[in-house]
């Protein structure tokens, strides 16, 4: 059963000049308890997608079409009271720069407590404190953090506080936006392990936004590849990253050096840069940079097609296209 379902979601930023098409016809399902990693370059629309799912985009300047179903309910058409209810209780978010994930002038405990009180207004201070301390324990944080200010904590501790904060109302869906990018590798791995453990224990489904393939490879069940606001490929991690269907995914995988990479060769990367989102190309959005592009790629946008093993990809050349060794 899909806990989160996106059907043909489009996000457009309206501006006085041209409209910017940040997300184009994205459809994907996130199965319960199957963590999903959304991968893409900077500017591919990852954060916009998250903001759309959380319904935090400014309606005065953005248009969101399509459906976003959380456990069957459409977030986009939900009445405001219901939206406030599900916020944080059903889905929560953890941000990247943990330093500014908390108010610098308020103590950690006070901030999280305030968050808690939005949904449990009758809770007493003692109840709130013990609940927060419980959550701290889950992420291996000492209780005294409650009385400290954010600037008194290290990067790793701050990240853990952010995670604890997101778990405080036992959400079903947890979205992590580049949450470990700012950490050193050792701490990053530690935290990823702890998160995976928590997910299993508490039945949380995680969506992880990142540009770091290795994080996805080591901690997610499924992966979705996003480029310039369009989905290129989705599927189980071990299949997509080992045998990518889409040339863009192939490019991403190739650009990550491994221990087997010949150190005398220059690093591979995908040439060119992102298209102008206000002026999208006619055909496949990746065609200008694709090493395998041919005529049809520049004429018509490819449709998302199903492939064996629960995989999907949007490429004219798939199912017959050879992949590099």
């Amino acid at each position, binding site marked *: 059963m899909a806990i989160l379902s996106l059907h043909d979601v489009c996000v457009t930023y309206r501006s006085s000049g041209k409209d910017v098409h940040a997300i184009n016809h994205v459809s994907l399902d996130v199965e319960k308890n199957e963590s999903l990693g959304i991968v893409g370059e900077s500017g591919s629309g990852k954060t916009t997608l998250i903001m759309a799912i959380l319904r935090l985009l400014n309606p005065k300047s953005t248009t969101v079409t399509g459906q976003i179903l959380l456990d069957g309910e459409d977030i986009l058409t939900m009445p405001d009271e219901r939206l*406030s209810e599900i*916020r944080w209780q059903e889905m929560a978010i953890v941000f990247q720069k943990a330093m500014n994930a908390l108010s610098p002038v308020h103590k950690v405990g006070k901030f999280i407590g305030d*968050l808690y009180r939005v949904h449990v207004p009758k809770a007493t201070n003692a109840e709130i404190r013990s609940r927060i301390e419980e959550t701290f324990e889950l992420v291996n944080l000492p209780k005294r953090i409650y009385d400290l200010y954010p600037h008194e904590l290290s990067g790793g501790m701050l990240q853990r506080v952010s995670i604890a904060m997101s778990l405080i109302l036992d959400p079903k869906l947890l979205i992590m936006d580049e949450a470990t990018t700012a950490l050193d590798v050792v701490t990053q791995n530690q935290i990823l392990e702890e998160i995976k453990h928590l997910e299993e224990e508490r039945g949380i489904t995680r969506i992880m936004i990142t540009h770091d393939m290795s994080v996805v490879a080591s901690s997610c069940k499924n992966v979705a590849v996003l480029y310039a606001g369009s989905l290129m490929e989705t599927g189980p991690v071990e299949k997509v990253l080992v045998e990518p269907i889409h040339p863009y995914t192939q490019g991403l995988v190739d650009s990550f050096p491994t221990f087997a990479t010949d150190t005398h060769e220059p690093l591979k990367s995908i040439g060119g840069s992102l298209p102008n989102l206000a002026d999208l190309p006619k055909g496949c959005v990746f065609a200008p940079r694709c090493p395998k592009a041919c005529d049809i790629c520049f004429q018509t946008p490819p449709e998302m097609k199903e492939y064996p093993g629960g995989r999907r990809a949007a490429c004219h050349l798939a199912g017959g296209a050879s992949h590099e060794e």
Partner: protein
Amino acid sequence: MRQYIGKRLLTAVLCVFLALLFNFIIIHAAPGNPIRILAGTDSVSEEMVAELTTKYGLDSPLYVQFFRYVGNLFKGDMGVSIYTGQPVAKEIMTRLGPTLLLCLTSCIIALVLGTLLGIFCARHAGSLLDTLLGSVSYFFDSTPSFWLGLMLILLFASTLHLLPTSGMVSLRAPAEGFARVLDIMKHMVLPSLSLSLTLIPYYFRIARTSVIQVGNEDFITTLRAAGMREDRIYRKYVFRNAILPVVTVFGIQLAYIVSGSAIVEIVFSWPGMGSYMMTAITRRDYPTLMGIYFVISVSVAVMMIAVDIVYTYLDPRIGRGSGK
């Protein structure tokens, strides 16, 4: 925290001392012999000049004069005005009150109004009102306070006869009680308006930018994603964080505000230290000049330290001991 305040105090003392020293040197290096000015004409007998010079201690070497002066300062003696013969300290103190009254009132009005307007415009950024207020702010930012004062007098006092044109109290003023306070307040409207209107744009800009920046921070998005109501977010979290740069700027601007008030005092014949300074300059009244500058330096230093202390309470990252 104590360490931080201690450092600021040291800076303040150093500043006042240096200001005094610098002041002293400049005043005594300037052309124009005060004795001759006092005497009125150049054709005064040499004995007369010599006598007066010794009387005012102007014949000792400069450094001796300086240390004698500093020594006296500790006793609360700022010397005697060359012009009036009265103790400088007494004269200045009667003028300190009106200056502080005008300064602080204008400051607070500018700070409060500027910040409120800035917050409002930040929340409605891009709207017509925002653009309008921004342009008006630009205009007042570029306006000389003395000119504004003159125009306000023209409009409200002279043409509309709503408010008095100058001074702090009316000629037939009630001597005390609430009526006197009211009278003073009536006289203070135009001067403090001239000063505040030119200060507001600065706080408006800082507050507006600060609120917009804080509004884009992750923790604000988190609060929204958690379902907290917009005005609670603004009141408790945006405001408390955005106010910090405004307070910082306020502290930095204090010296500037004091200068601005001096000019306004002159336009409105407000009996404060600014207008007094002008008279002292024309008369080359050294002791009075030194005294005024000293008192102003000390006042500014005291106010800056007060603002610093307030800031350490607002921002836990500064001053308070941190513990990991």
